[in-house]
């Protein structure tokens, strides 16, 4: 076989072809579940889009929002219901700034908040491992209760199961929540438009680093606490000031990078971020430099990303900064028309790079 090198144009054409075919489509190719399928990145999207979403497909699910939005009455004339569920398996159960109980309440409230809903009620289901200390369980239950009280939402139903020792890691929690959407319009990751701006309410990466420090016994002396917080009142303040907001999202697993890639793919737009505008605390930056991981792919539990029309920037920032959870709110980038489905980062030294979705777990690099 004689070797004929392909030209640059041929190569670019091939890349474009592959990209068009796979744009917004995820394929499940794996034989077994690995930890990557739970990391919030590409593997998880492959699992959801390739198996779960494809099997259950219906108009409400297919929107792939963090909370399902169900019209009440034939045309939704009686308002709309937001409905969501999430499971919590964090280890260790207690970490600086939070614990599995607070996380389970905040995470579900935040999924409702990103739909623009006012949270109505929550469920809590517990899966307990044989041998779990009752004191520990009591601490988690107290924490669930105080987090729900602080957020002004009741836990109205629940379930408990006990499994054999080794079948669970101490305890797992599932919460579900319902909320009511009073406002007109639909917030969605499909709604970003060229010219819009991307805002965030504060520094990224705190939760993921706090948990990693507690989990890995890294012997780094760091004062990082989880940012876990309920975001519904912050979201409401923003939506009151900017009813025309396109999309709200909480960048949890997979971090800011994954969250913005989802918006870019679903809305068929590009997103250009300015690296120096993205707030990251010096402690988190330092930990990431040492560990060789990117703060933009690390989980947050109290961050709100908002895509809004550019004209509403001042009103949106004022509304966010007027709330205790939004004091450090800022604009981090803008939505561009082309190339669609991609997120770019203007780096601090003036270069440009593609900011991809997290692939697999954020594993530390050796080189």
């Amino acid at each position, binding site marked *: 076989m004689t*070797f*004929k*090198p*392909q030209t*640059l*144009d041929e*190569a*670019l054409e*091939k*890349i474009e*072809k*592959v990209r068009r075919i796979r744009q917004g489509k995820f*394929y499940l*190719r794996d034989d*077994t*579940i*690995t*930890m*990557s399928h739970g990391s919030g990145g590409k593997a998880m999207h492959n699992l959801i889009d390739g198996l779960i979403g494809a099997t259950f497909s219906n108009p409400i699910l297919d929107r792939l929002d963090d909370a399902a939005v169900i019209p009440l009455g034939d045309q939704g004339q009686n308002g709309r219901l937001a409905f969501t569920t999430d499971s919590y398996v964090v280890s260790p159960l207690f970490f600086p700034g939070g614990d599995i109980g607070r996380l389970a309440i905040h995470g579900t409230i935040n999924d409702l908040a990103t739909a623009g809903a006012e949270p109505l009620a929550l469920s809590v289901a517990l899966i307990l491992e044989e041998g779990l200390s009752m004191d520990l369980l009591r601490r988690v239950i107290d924490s669930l209760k105080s987090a729900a009280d602080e957020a002004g939402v009741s836990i109205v139903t629940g379930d408990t199961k006990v499994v054999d020792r080794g079948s669970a890691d101490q305890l797992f929690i599932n919460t579900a929540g319902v909320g009511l959407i009073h406002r007109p319009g639909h917030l969605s990751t499909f709604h970003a438009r060229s010219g819009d*701006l*991307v805002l965030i309410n504060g520094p990224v990466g705190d939760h993921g680093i706090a948990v990693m420090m507690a989990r*890995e016994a890294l012997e780094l002396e760091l004062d990082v606490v989880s940012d876990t917080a309920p975001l519904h009142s912050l979201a409401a303040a923003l939506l009151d000031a900017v009813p025309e907001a396109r999309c709200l999202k909480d960048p949890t697993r997979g971090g800011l990078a994954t969250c913005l890639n989802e918006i870019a793919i679903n809305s068929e737009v590009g997103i*250009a*971020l*300015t690296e*120096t*505008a993205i707030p990251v605390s010096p402690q988190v*930056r*330092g930990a990431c*430099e040492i560990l060789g991981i*990117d703060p933009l792919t690390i989980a947050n539990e109290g961050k709100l990303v908002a895509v809004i029309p550019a004209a509403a920037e001042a009103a949106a*920032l004022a509304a966010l900064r007027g709330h205790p959870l939004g004091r450090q709110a*800022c*604009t*981090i*980038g*803008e939505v*561009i*028309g*082309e*190339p669609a489905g991609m997120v*770019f*980062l*203007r*780096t*601090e*030294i*003036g*270069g*440009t*790079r*593609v900011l*991809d979705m997290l*692939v*697999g777990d954020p*594993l*530390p*690099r*050796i*080189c």
Partner: protein
Amino acid sequence: MKFVDEYRRNDLVRNLRGEIERLSASRRFNFMEVCGGHTHTIYKHGIEDILPPTIDLVHGPGCPVCVIPMGRLDDAIAIAHHPGVIFTTFGDMMRVPGSQGSLLDARARGADVRFIYSPLDALKIARENPRQEVVFFAIGFETTTPSTAITLLLARAEGLRNFSVFCNHVTIIPAMKAILDSPDLRLDGFIGPGHVSTIIGLRPYEFVARDYGKPVVISGFEPIDIIQGIYMILKQIDEGRCDIENQYGRVVRPEGNLKGLEVMRETMMLRPYFEWRGLGFISQSALKLRPEFAPWDAELKFEVPGLQVADPKACQCGEVLKGVIKPWECRVFGTACTPETPIGTCMVSSEGACAAYFNYGRFSLAAQRRQVHLNLDPGTGGS
């Protein structure tokens, strides 16, 4: 942040860029950054975007994860599946595929695979689990070798018999020589590996300038280190010099780390040859444990298949790694070989040269070729 921000200053970048543009106006230059850490910085900060189009960076063989051949990875996975074994490894090794999947897949199938930050963590796990066998998957260039060596010395001193090392340490100089010996070499100079040089010093590179007439500038890992390294190579060429220079003087000493070299010599010796993914067999390019450390040598302790798994035929990773062809010139690039279905090592790791081109490089390429306007001018976003 101190020791980071000053190496990312925009004004310094602009000054250096101006100088680089002036020195590279006359013709095209191909420079190889040997180290995977450099490749990472180049992509993370968009350095290729800042350089004038006359400068091409060729991503070299210095990513320790990418050069581990499939056969060795299969051996590692076989050890991990031995009953009672706790297999420990650095994080990014978990994802690299062998012929039957990765260590991450092995863990999903029941193997006890854990990622650690230092081989000393593996030693700690061995102390805490005296009834289990703890194996450390040692990989990396001279940068990581001394820490494996010290771990071995500690294990011996403590008489810790349930700990062993699966040694895959490689050495950078033979790989550079293999690249320099390639008949269709297109390189004009090397950005030398900073961390490796911390251990081995500057002297081992002298042959590159003396025998092959290529300048080497050992560089650090911050954006300005690399950009300044490129400027220093261009300046040498402009002044008609060909030397080994040290840009990374704040860390690299000319004589290297003598203590590190000593513990390496005490515990390890050269293998007659070793297979490199993409480059094939290179003589005297890797290390194994000395016979007196046999009780801690996982290759002797466990039965491993030890099979060689050939790189796929269609793959031209070797030529890409040597800078002979550009990633997009490979015959399977973009068709049979994509980041989702990689054939060769360069497409496997996201830092591999081909994956980087596929994922990141195409926009600047397309922009150069078709004058596509990317609306990415700074200043419109951010506050």
